[in-house]
């Protein structure tokens, strides 16, 4: 029998039928280690849980409920749904994270809820972010969450795995975001649908946790169920003779700063190909690029300068911890002095549910992960995705700008 991928190993270890060999394509019933749900999806999960006869969740210590999609509540309907979540968490003795603490995925990582090798479900497609911690984590809907809350189990189709080898090292001005946008361009928005992705390469081995989170965060933009930046310290590894569906190689030495054009994440090109595009709004934040490392990168470029006339810069730190650190370091001060407007840590701007909605025909440059039509709350706006450095350079010039155009990057 051939070796196993990370996805095959973790699912096999959690299968209720012990000891049976597992291969891609098998359907397994597995026990889950941890559940995460937030205010956009938890109310529906709680309702489904009650409708299926649930009274007590299988293990309250294995779940967290987080308010992050529209906080502080913008109107009464949302306030009441959030209130329902507070009551449910209290009744069930489930960990509860109040609005303002930050984006769910950042909180789960910061709080250290997870360990390598675990199997985790979240009612958010970017739950795959925890792959950076060696966790098989995947997004599900509210009813799957309800069933897992009730039974402690779920069913899984074991995914095939794509192996992505990142060769060489990153040039100045490039970041993890440019790597994952390039990868999305190569694999395609549905190229990893139902699949797992394992990333390898020297750059991964030395990349920061923040960079690895950015990579794992966006595997779902290629349709992937889960993804793993495979460094030796990931805490879980594939067998040497594991079977891969396909191998993809990306040459980092040849990479330049990238953008994804509206309205598809895989419509990518070099920043230089779109550097005449005038922008109206920029967003720095999200589970993809709202960490302290991202804010520092932008502040390095914006410190002591002013953003261009006609451009709005919105910043939503990924968490309270990130925001406090950014304050301590003077990073937030630099961003605000340059003209940035700071929003409560959370998801609202990225997902068009709270704050920062663009007007008809406006161009937005965003550090988030999605540029679907209508994503930020207006289907007549145009969203480009880019790295924090590209965003900072672009708000200075008022048009999409390669950070290497700036003196300090030459």
């Amino acid at each position, binding site marked *: 029998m051939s070796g196993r991928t990370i996805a095959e190993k973790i699912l096999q270890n959690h299968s209720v039928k012990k000891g049976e060999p597992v291969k891609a394509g098998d359907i397994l019933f597995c026990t889950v280690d941890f559940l995460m749900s937030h205010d956009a999806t938890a109310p529906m999960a709680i309702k489904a849980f009650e409708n299926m*006869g649930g009274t007590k969740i299988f293990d309250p210590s294995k779940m967290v409920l987080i308010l992050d999609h529209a906080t502080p509540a913008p109107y009464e309907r949302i306030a009441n749904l959030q209130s329902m979540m507070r009551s449910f968490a209290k009744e069930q003795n489930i960990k509860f994270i109040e609005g303002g603490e930050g984006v769910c995925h950042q909180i789960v990582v910061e709080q250290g809820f997870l360990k390598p090798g675990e199997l985790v479900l979240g009612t958010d497609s970017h739950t795959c972010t925890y792959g950076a911690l060696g966790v098989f984590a995947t997004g599900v809907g509210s009813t799957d969450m309800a069933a897992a809350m009730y*039974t402690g189990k779920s069913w899984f189709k074991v995914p095939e795995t794509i192996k992505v080898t990142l060769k060489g090292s990153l040039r100045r001005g490039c970041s993890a975001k440019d790597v994952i946008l390039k990868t999305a361009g190569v694999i395609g928005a549905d190229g990893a649908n139902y699949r797992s992705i394992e990333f390898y390469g020297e750059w991964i081995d030395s990349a920061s946790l923040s960079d690895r989170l950015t990579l794992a965060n966006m595997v779902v933009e290629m349709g992937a169920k889960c993804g793993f930046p495979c460094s030796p310290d990931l805490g879980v590894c594939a067998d040497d003779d594991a079977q891969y569906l396909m191998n993809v190689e990306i040459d980092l030495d040849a990479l330049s700063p990238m953008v994804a054009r509206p309205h598809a994440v895989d419509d990518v090109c070099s920043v230089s190909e779109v550097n005449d595009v005038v922008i109206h709004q920029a967003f720095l934040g999200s589970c993809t690029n709202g960490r302290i490392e991202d804010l520092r990168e932008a502040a390095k470029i914006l410190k002591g300068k002013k953003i261009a006339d006609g451009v709005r810069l919105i910043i939503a730190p990924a968490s309270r911890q990130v925001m406090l650190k950014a304050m301590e370091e003077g990073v937030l001060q630099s961003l605000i002095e340059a003209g940035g407007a700071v929003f409560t840590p959370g998801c609202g701007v990225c997902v068009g549910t709270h704050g920062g909605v663009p007007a008809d025909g406006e161009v937005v440059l965003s550090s988030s992960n999605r540029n679907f039509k209508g994503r930020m709350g207006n289907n007549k706006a145009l969203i480009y995705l880019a790295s924090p450095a590209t965003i900072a350079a672009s708000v200075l010039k008022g048009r999409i700008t390669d950070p290497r155009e700036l003196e300090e990057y030459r």
Partner: protein
Amino acid sequence: MKLQGHAVKYGDNISTDLIIAGKHTKTLNVRDLADHAMEDLDPAFGRRISGGGILAAGSYFGCGSSREQAPVALKEAGVLFIAAKTFSRIFYRNAVNIGLPVVECDTDAISDDDILEYDVGAEVLRNITQKKELAVTPLPEIMVEILKEGGVVPYIRKYGGF
């Protein structure tokens, strides 16, 4: 469980943001969800799908967010089932979980207003108008069982778990 209705045809890569925008998802009132289904793509969707419509689409239907409000909005708007060349993983599962059948087949052989017929779990979808039988990618057994019960909620109520 034989389902028959008229096709309403759309293209490729229809995201959950287009099926229902994030700003409309914060409610437990499923009628509110249905009122906004597909509105950014086709303001006439509600009228076209009513009276037992079947949503036919191209590749990668339902990509993006894990919001279950997307299949719920479609089901409540009157969609009997969805036929597409391929589906995004999370949407596919969510649709089955709420009892909305999904059929993977070559939808190039379906035009607007064709009368389609599908029996949940069957190997073919019948295009009655064009007198064609379209091969359907088989569903895993667990999904057929869930659909036959009308979704995961009734399934678990009946069996007490998986």
